[in-house]
């Protein structure tokens, strides 16, 4: 029995993929809620922004408004259906919950940032009206549709088609579109702006990292089980898909940065996206396409441990579930 074999496996013991179960448990320990995010200091910051930066923030928020919903839809419509192991479906259920929290977070953010109901409605309609966001959405929908017709993964072609969908959502959408969006947030954060947005985004970022990890783990598992699926043609398809995603996200950057924002240029953003795309290829065991270094020093900040001064911000580093019972002879 292989992971992508059609059916509805219900057997948790013996467990075939304990790693998936561990990922599920780690995710539970990491629970956060929107109520914990403190957006109060963002409002005065918004007033401080110049027109170019304000445009950036508005566009960004408009993207966030719908991004996670799209991911959640694909999860339900495609991933949950075909990844046939109950422990993997446990993880996906948890992921679905997390996507819901993200949607709620960005909804709360929009309600806070945009007090005018018309503006809010416009932000949610961005997928329809704003070309740079529409282009990204179309990319997503195309890939959702590409797997929607698959009732059961019977043939090699079905499985390849499904794998591409999985890889697209992990590498291009969560792994590239979101990483692009996070970069803007952290850019603002590095200048001390919009701490509330950044602290919520920190938690979203952490979740998205885990989702991507899980998806790549699924890819690796399939690779081990059905190595012949991974041929040059698949690699070529993945590259083409990533290249297209980089272009779509760069076009988004041209829109966001249209007003000129000191410290962030479209050229740097493109390089950053190419760097991220290469990382995704490396994670998939494929050769890099661009061979460029990360130009954004403020993104390096996201890679190291945080130490918040508690007077100022809530520390996002605590765990939710702890186990064990009272004892007096353990090491510490």
């Amino acid at each position, binding site marked *: 029995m292989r992971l992508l074999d059609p059916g509805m496996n219900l057997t948790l013991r013996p467990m075939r993929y304990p790693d998936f179960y561990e990922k599920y448990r780690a995710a539970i320990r990491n629970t956060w809620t929107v109520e914990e995010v403190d957006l*109060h200091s963002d409002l005065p910051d918004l007033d401080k922004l110049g027109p170019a930066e304000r445009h950036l923030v508005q566009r960004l928020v408009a993207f966030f408004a719908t991004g996670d919903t799209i991911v959640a839809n694909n999860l339900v419509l495609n991933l949950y259906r075909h990844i046939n192991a109950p422990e993997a479906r446990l993880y996906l259920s948890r992921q679905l919950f997390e996507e819901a929290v993200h949607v709620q977070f960005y909804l709360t953010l929009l309600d806070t940032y945009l007090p005018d109901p018309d503006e809010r409605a416009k932000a949610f309609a961005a997928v329809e009206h704003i070309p740079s966001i529409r282009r990204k959405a179309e990319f997503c929908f195309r890939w959702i549709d590409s797997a929607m017709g698959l009732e059961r993964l019977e043939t090699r072609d079905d499985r390849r088609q499904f794998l591409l969908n999985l890889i697209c959502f992990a590498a291009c959408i969560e792994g590239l579109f979101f990483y692009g969006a996070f970069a803007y947030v952290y850019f603002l*954060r590095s200048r001390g702006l919009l701490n509330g947005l950044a602290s919520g985004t920190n938690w979203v*970022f952490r979740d998205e990292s885990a989702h991507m990890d899980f998806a790549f783990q699924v890819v690796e598992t399939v690779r081990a089980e059905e190595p012949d699926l991974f041929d040059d043609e698949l690699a070529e398809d993945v590259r083409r898909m990533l290249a297209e995603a980089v272009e779509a996200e760069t076009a988004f950057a041209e829109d966001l940065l249209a007003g000129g924002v*000191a410290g962030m240029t479209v050229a740097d953003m493109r390089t950053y996206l190419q760097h991220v795309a290469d990382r995704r290829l490396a994670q998939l065991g494929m050769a890099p396409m661009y061979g460029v270094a990360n130009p954004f020093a403020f993104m390096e900040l996201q*890679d190291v441990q*945080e130490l918040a001064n508690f007077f100022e911000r809530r520390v996002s580093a605590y765990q939710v579930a*702890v186990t064990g*019972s009272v004892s007096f002879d353990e090491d510490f």
Partner: protein
Amino acid sequence: MTVMDSAIPRAQNRPVSTGSSAIVEADAAALPTAPEALLDAVRALAADLPDTDPARVVDRAVAGLHTGATAAELDALAVRTAAELIAQEPEYSRLAARLLARTIGAEVRSQGVGAFSEGIALGHAEGLIGDTTAAFVAAHAAELDAAVDSALAAGADRRFEYFGLRTVYDRYLLRHPVNRQVVETPQYFLLRVACGLSRTAEEAVGFYRLMSSLAYLPSSPTLFNSGTRHTQMSSCYLLDSPQDNLESIYDMYGRIARLSKFAGGIGVAWSRIRSRGALIRGTNGHSNGIVPWLNTLDASVQAVNQGGRRKGAACVYLEPWHPDILEFLELRDNTGEEARRTHNLNLANWIPDLFMRRVDADGVWSLFDPNEVPELPDLWGPEFDAVYEQAECDGRFVRQIPARELYARMMRTLAQTGNGWMTFKDAANRTCNQAAEPGNVVHLSNLCTEILEVTSDGETAVCNLGSVQLGAHVADGGMDWDKLRATVRTAVTFLDRVIDINYYPTGQAAASNPRWRPVGLGVMGLQDVFFSLGLPFDAPEARELSTRIAEEIYLTALETSCDLAAEAGPHPAYEETHAARGRLQPDLWDGVTPTQTKRWDALRDRVAAHGLRNSLLIAVAPTATIASIAGAYECIEPQVSNLFKRETLSGEFLQINTYLVRELKARGLWTAAVRDRIKRAEGSVQDIVELPEDVRRLYRTAWELPQRALIDLAAARSPYIDQSQSLNLFMADPTIGKLSSMYRYAWSTGLKTTYYLRSRPATRIQQATVAAAPAVADEEAIACSLENPEACEACQ
């Protein structure tokens, strides 16, 4: 005052075309901001920083510009660009700081301020500076202005690291009330603080020099407010629990709001308020318990913004016999009904020894409504035990639970929220100089668990703080004890001075502080000392040195306080203290023998003759912000990581262990590859096998050190800490078992208080900038090479 007219053209708005130097010089005071001129400036500032590359900074800054960018944007970008290179080369921290100092200087000059005294005059005219300080400065203008010049000539501004100066600029420098530009430079700021506390120019200059050398800094409220119109300079306010009625509770909200407004941190007990289900006679209804009150307190504290500089903050203390204790422990959970949560309040357990003994013995624990047994908050030690056990015998409890069940819940809260600090009521009272007479009771600690002072309905305890930067007192492979003594003497003198000048926002605070005159002298940079001297935290020599430092500081502080008493008399409540009975802090501990016996003997004679000016002298505060300014590691803490990010209201900042970098450079190991390895290991160097074992031992992080060592160090210095210490404990992956062992041990050593439990997130962010983790097969090869560097063939 006309120079402040906002109609004056500001440098900020002039456009600069990138790639050329075509900038219109509108006024002579403006910066030369063209890229070429910027390069010259950067070169000059980097002259003694050989590992920096000025051209790289300027090129990158210019590349980040867009068309139509202003001159100010280029300057700001140059500062940020230099700061972004810190991870690659720590010297860029100094360069970024100097660039920032340059722009600050220009901003101050653009207000028409060219000297310290001019800044004070402007600040006074704008209603920022108090009359007394303005008059003092006007009377001594020449001498004070000269002091700044000579400090600058001696490199005062060059001592700052970027994060420190950025913090000073964003948060501490006084700003013009209308145009929001800063009206003081970093040096003016420190001299303003000194002048606010001085009687003579000589005194002011001496105190300024000490602060300017970054060897000592007062705490933030003093830095914020000294010399201003609102001289609230105390850090901590401790309020006993409100009485169990509406008027008292609402009065408490108002008091806390007033204390918060001027940057004080709040500790408040809540043990006297009746629990959920208790009868309300007035309405014949039942109480909803403490949670709704604390929810309101949470909202109230949040609403008070400390002058825009930081949010209000408070910690609530509850004793574990209160029937609402379990709900209290859930106040910061992130699930459940929002009305029963307080996301911003800090929580602390105020624990009697009896509870810990019951936990030890796996006994039952009884929960009493404070209405039923109202004496408990005011009792400690054997008297508490007697009343508690009698009430238990009489069956007056609301209910009983296994003591270990409650203890496990406390541990769970610590692991999940870092909050629910364990502080020990009996140890706190047993060793408190103020608690020598019955009725003088310590009811709680403060927001950071380092202050222990008596409180009552009529007295709110107050403490103003300052910290010695120990790292600045290392010389020739050891401590410079003479310098340390000199620093402590100056520090205590000016901490004491605050008491008389301080503005007290409530009557209860004004009633307490002049009577007891407590101060809290603490330390920062213990880790700097240990790095400088090559001592790992768990080495016996480290413990010995840290204890010796604590003794030296306490002894010198007592000597100074005794000198002050000889001049001005002992503090009014002196007769109520242990000191008046000949008992100093080490005497309140079993089996402690100080090392400097002669000095102690001499001191005891003098105290007997003159008394002490201050009832309490030592408190080791967390020093988060002032340690940043001083560029030191926080208080008595080990480093959290060799490479970490500090998040504050000013933005995110990379901090790197410069001692380690020096070591790596000396070994030719400061390469991009090694940096990536440290980053991937989240700041640990334990896997850098090229480093000898003893070096790796020295550079362990707080997560890698045995926590027993931190507790032992804290316990060993406790007999010289007459208040307490903010002791954080670290456990990456906590379990109830590990935590219960650790906190039981902490209690058994006699520690008075502990602070946060720091743990790490269960899942992590994918690193975006380190080379992607190698595929699965390669990981085995790495593991193999790390464990087995010589023998592994696969890695050759």
